[in-house]
């Protein structure tokens, strides 16, 4: 138990913070109920996928600046393909867009490996390219989405054996998020590829010398990030019903949540759970500040300050533990 605590101290701390924030929300707004929680989760959905994408890349020792642009491109592609099409057609569109995200992510990785240009510069260039491609697909917000996809994240799903009062607190969007993340992350974490991703993140040279295929692993890490970003893009279209070619604030948010979630920017450390909890913390905080009727502009200041202070605190702790 103590070992579990020590190894996952950061995640546990974040969870406690999340619970505290929930209690605070109930105190500020006693009517805050299951419905509001559902809409919170819907708002979190694209952020969570962006964070998942960033997490995989950061663990592999890179950084993906193109994640928001990738989401914009996949979102407009999905929206423009589904506009005016039949409901069944969406069954084809979703896998297609996911495959597209995976491929574009792999291209990101391939460019990094082949050109030997630093990750941050390559993804900066692909940020422009993907943004431009999104504008070519749709030059103004528009498109449509199949009804069943929209309904996938609205409301709750009745589970037998669980009383309705608890069931109301498990919105479909949360289940969807959990299932999708687990489908990709758990097999990855258990596989040789997952181990290689952590290995090249913590020491690329050592990984190379112990026979890890560094280039292939890096490409796969970016490809999986592309897959997550495509999920984020589709979820964006699911919640708004349209596709917008302008990238949202997901890049900054994803980097912030990754760091807040205890993933070291150098790579090789951390997991997916921490960043996902961190993104909930950041969104819930925003809700609380709105409920307190604080000027939304001040909210930006508070968010930024919290991010900086938490990161400074984290860096301070690692410094202390290293010197002792």
């Amino acid at each position, binding site marked *: 138990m103590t070992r579990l605590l020590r190894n996952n101290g950061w995640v546990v701390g974040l969870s406690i913070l999340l619970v505290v924030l929930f209690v605070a929300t109930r105190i500020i707004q006693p009517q805050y109920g299951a419905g509001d929680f559902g809409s919170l989760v819907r708002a979190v959905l694209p952020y969570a996928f962006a964070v998942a994408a960033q997490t995989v890349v950061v663990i592999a020792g890179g950084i993906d600046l193109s994640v928001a642009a990738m989401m914009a491109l996949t979102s407009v592609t999905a929206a423009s393909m589904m506009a005016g099409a039949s409901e069944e057609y969406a069954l084809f569109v979703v896998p297609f867009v996911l495959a597209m995200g995976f491929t574009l992510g792999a291209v990101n990785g391939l460019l990094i490996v082949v050109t030997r*240009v*630093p990750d941050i510069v390559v993804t*900066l*260039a692909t940020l*422009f390219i993907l943004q431009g491609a999104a504008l070519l697909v749709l030059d103004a917000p528009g498109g449509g989405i199949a009804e069943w996809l929209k309904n996938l994240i609205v409301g709750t799903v009745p589970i037998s054996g669980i009383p309705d009062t608890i069931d109301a607190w498990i919105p479909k969007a949360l289940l969807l998020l959990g299932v999708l993340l687990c489908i990709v992350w758990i097999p990855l974490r258990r596989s040789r590829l997952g181990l290689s991703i952590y290995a090249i993140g913590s020491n690329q040279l050592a990984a190379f010398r112990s026979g890890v295929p560094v280039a292939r692993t890096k490409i796969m890490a970016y490809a999986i990030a592309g897959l997550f970003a495509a999920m984020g893009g589709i979820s964006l279209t699911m919640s708004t019903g349209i596709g917008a070619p302008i990238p949202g604030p997901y890049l900054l948010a994803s980097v912030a949540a990754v760091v807040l979630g205890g993933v070291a920017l150098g790579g090789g450390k951390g997991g997916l759970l921490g960043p996902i909890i961190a993104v909930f913390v950041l969104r819930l905080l925003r809700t609380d500040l709105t409920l307190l009727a604080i000027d939304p502009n001040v909210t930006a200041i508070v968010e930024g300050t919290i*991010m*900086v202070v938490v990161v400074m605190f984290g860096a301070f702790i690692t410094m202390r533990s290293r010197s002792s």
Partner: protein
Amino acid sequence: MTLATTTPEAAPLGRRIKRFMSDYPIVPLLVLLILLVLVLQILSPGIVNQRWIANTVKFAIPLALLAGAQTMVMLTGGIDLSVGTVATMAGFIVATQTVDHPAGLAMAIALVPALIIGFTNGIGVGVFRVHPLIMTLGTSLIGVGFLQVYQRTVISAGTKYPDFLVWLGTGITWGFPNALVLFVPVAVLLIFIQRRTGFGRLLYAIGDNERATRLAGVKYWQVILALYMLSSVLAGIMGLLYVGLIKAASLSLAEPLVLPSVAAAVIGGTSIFGGRGGYTGTIVGALILTVLTTLLTILQMPEGARRILFGAIVLLVTAAYLRIIEDR
């Protein structure tokens, strides 16, 4: 004997060119710049004249200033993403404060946030060892928040631009943009700092091997603090100039220039991992990006295609350039 002495002479021409280019990395950049101008002239004959050159330089200077701040920070292996916010704050504040205050005082007020943000960045990166990317991202978020709150208090007052800044930003005297009055001393100063001062050598040293530098007795946090404050002040000055050039203060004034500033430094041969590069390359990089933007505008392509080309060319140039200077 004779064979040994003639061998170096007999090296193949391609190899020698490559060698020459890796010894003088500025040359391939200048060649690229001239090529771009030539393409522009072919696509739209007669466009390249004295007036056009003056205008291009005028628009390249703000980017070059911002990229100058970026270059200094990148030499230590860091990155400063708050330069856009700092420049925007300076520009916006000077435009709104000139309404009530004399121009000089307004400019001084406008540079205060730059100092504060630079100080915070320096403390965060230097003392607490936060990753520069995160630190500067965070402070720029905070800065944007403050700017939005500030905007609400001055929105009714309107904006006014100091005559001096408008003269500096837009004016052209005898075919030379007035902004050169500001830019040339700044550029000389930056290059002098990098090449001839102890501070400059420390920047390269930290970028090359931070641990070794600290073990050698360098007060790491002092260097970093000074560096990030310098970077922010430079960005603030660029904001003042830019608002005089654009004459439309908005909350996203200099924000679109942040990523190109990184691109300009990288194209100019400054390594993002630190320890290598310099400001001369960055200036050429900024010119290349500006000419490239003109070129893509003249081609009259849709906005989307232009961005795709911009990204592709930045990537291509960086990759090719790294090949040239690293293949020894």
